[in-house]
């Protein structure tokens, strides 16, 4: 899985790995995390060459690329083609954020009537290129690493980049937010404050922020590995928490992540199981 030998310092003849950043349907917040690595940005730029990053640089080079960071989900016919081209040009493709890994908040349209959505917003919808779904990058091309979160954690981003530069596996957690609360000594908001919290089924990465601010986790890092969504939801249903409260919580920034999607559809009396998918 070696990609490019790490350039030796001072040896300008060794070309640096070429990094590209691509955006699909998204808010720019995840690529902004790269610019938010204030302390590391300039040193990172010595280790790799940023050759395609529209938000940050007017220098635009063509592929091939050693590492492509892909933000955003696929929502238009044009982007269906563009992601194939990005994949062809890139040795390693890393998706960054909930849009790219799970369709993002815009995946709510997977449950809606596309033409009605269009009419709600546009006077002349026929000029607008939009599919009836918002889907993850991995639904269309092979993805090498996925970074979860809405937005991603910039330290995880740095770790993935450094791992790719040094040919090691990234150290990405796979446990749930719940464990991080215990680690930082946060009193459980579900137990102590009776908040509905998705911490037990949500992927770690945020640092268990919401419970530390007295609110339940709303799942912005998507489902943790081996999460038992049904068990958590059934427990809440048993406590008389109703579907209209639980379904929007499962169906937000990672609505199209399989575990959240299936669990929400099971509970939602009106669901027709992701009709557009």
């Amino acid at each position: 899985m070696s990609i490019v030998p790490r350039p030796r310092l001072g040896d300008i003849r060794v070309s640096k790995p070429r990094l590209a950043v691509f955006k699909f349907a998204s808010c720019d917040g995840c690529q902004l995390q790269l610019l938010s690595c204030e302390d590391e940005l300039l040193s990172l730029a010595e280790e790799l060459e940023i050759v395609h990053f529209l938000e940050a640089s007017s220098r635009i080079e063509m592929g091939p690329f050693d590492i492509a960071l892909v933000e955003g989900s696929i929502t238009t016919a044009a982007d269906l083609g563009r992601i194939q081209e990005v994949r062809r040009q890139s040795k390693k493709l890393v998706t960054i954020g909930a849009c790219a890994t799970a369709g993002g908040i815009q995946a709510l349209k997977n449950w809606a009537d596309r033409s009605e959505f269009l009419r709600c917003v546009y006077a002349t919808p026929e000029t607008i290129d939009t599919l009836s779904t918002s889907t993850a990058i991995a639904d269309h091309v092979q993805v090498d690493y996925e970074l979860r979160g809405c937005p991603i954690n910039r330290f995880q981003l740095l770790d993935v980049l450094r791992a790719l530069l040094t040919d090691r596996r990234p150290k990405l957690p796979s446990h749930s937010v719940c464990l991080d609360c215990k680690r930082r000594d946060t009193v459980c908001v579900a137990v102590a404050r009776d908040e509905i919290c998705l911490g037990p089924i949500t992927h770690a990465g945020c640092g268990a922020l919401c419970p530390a601010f007295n609110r339940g986790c709303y799942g912005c890092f998507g489902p943790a590995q081996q999460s038992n969504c049904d068990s958590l939801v059934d427990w809440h249903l048993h406590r008389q928490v109703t579907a209209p409260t639980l379904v929007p919580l499962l169906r937000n920034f990672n609505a199209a992540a399989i575990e959240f999607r299936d669990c929400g559809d099971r509970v939602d009396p009106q669901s027709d199981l992701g009709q557009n998918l």
Partner: protein
Amino acid sequence: MNKKQIRTIEVAALTRVEGEGALRVVVEGERILDVQLAIYEPPRFFEALLRGRPLDETPDITARICGICPVAYQMTAVHALEQALGIVVTPEIRELRRLLYCGEWIESHGVHMHLLHIPDFFGYSNSIELAQVYPHQVNRGLRLKKIGNRLLEVLGGRAVHPINVAVGGFFKAPRLSELRSLADDLQWGLEAAIDVVRWVASFEYPEFKGDYEMVALRHAEEYPMNEGRIVSTAGLDIATDEFEQHFEERQVPHSTALHAWQLPHRSTYTVGPLARMNLNRDHLSACAYELSESVEMQWPCFNPYRSIIARGIEVVHAFEEALAIVRRYQGCSPARMSYAVSPGQAREGMWATEAPRGLIYHRYQTTSDGKIAHAKIIPPTSQNQRQIELDLAALLPQLLAQPDSAIGLACEKLIRSYDPCISCATHFLKFEIKRL
């Protein structure tokens, strides 16, 4: 050149702007036939997908419209919903919200100035190249931005899509020690931000006199962030709930973002730091006001290239105000006003605040069971978009002798001076025809 020859100049991908757009200019001889700031950013239908969602999710969902200015969406949404529900927040909550907005102005202006815009003045493609020649200035910019992010993290939980903003206030008020610990950095930031303005004001700026109306909020006592009346350089003075009687949006074929104009003559207008400062300079903090007097700049200023100076002075203001708030903070209890959605009638609320890029307006209708029935969101960039095109049309005649690449570059520089936020503009607004 053959007079009949049609020349098309295209910038396929605008760079160093937030979001994705292109520029297309069509010229026949000496005549500019068309200028289109084409936005091909895919639509995400926020107004449509908000419908039916629990209203207390609105600040979390609308934040996702823009990763650079999520606080602007959160602030506008909570104020509009509080107006709908009849919630009045305490002065302490109000002050913390101003502090949060200071953090976003520092962060967003910091990104735009140091990473996106300043490389233009030295002919570099990006700030990494700029840092080879001006390492101190770039590192100073990064540190300023970092302090803005730190403020957002302490108060909001994180800088991108903060998690601590709620309808009614905050989920948790910051501890005294947490806010006080920021004071040293804010003091450093204030001094560094003043140096940045002096540096930026020494750049060479093209002469450009825009003949247009500028619109911003104006508050009786303070530089506008979270509230005020809507005023303009042409004398407009209305309450925020009159916004839609004076401004509307329309769809244009070349863009997935709607364009806004002012009624009754469908005239263009601009919003943003320059508009705010032209209309509110008397309410700047002491250091920021003094700086605005001492830099080489005539007020009011209608040269969009000089927006970066206004942006820099606003960063000084934000640091000075943040420092004052942090120093006088004595805690905030309750952190959040409790409210109950009373069964019965549906409600409506609308509000405008000042996003880093200018005035932003939200209107919501809520259902009797606490859900969103209707949402309308008008971001700054859709209000500036048409004026950017007109400015380009005014600029282009002087450039036509140059090769396409040079023209494209000159156009991009003008566009960047507006700090357009294309992701924001592309969330689509309902088109309504109004006949007056």
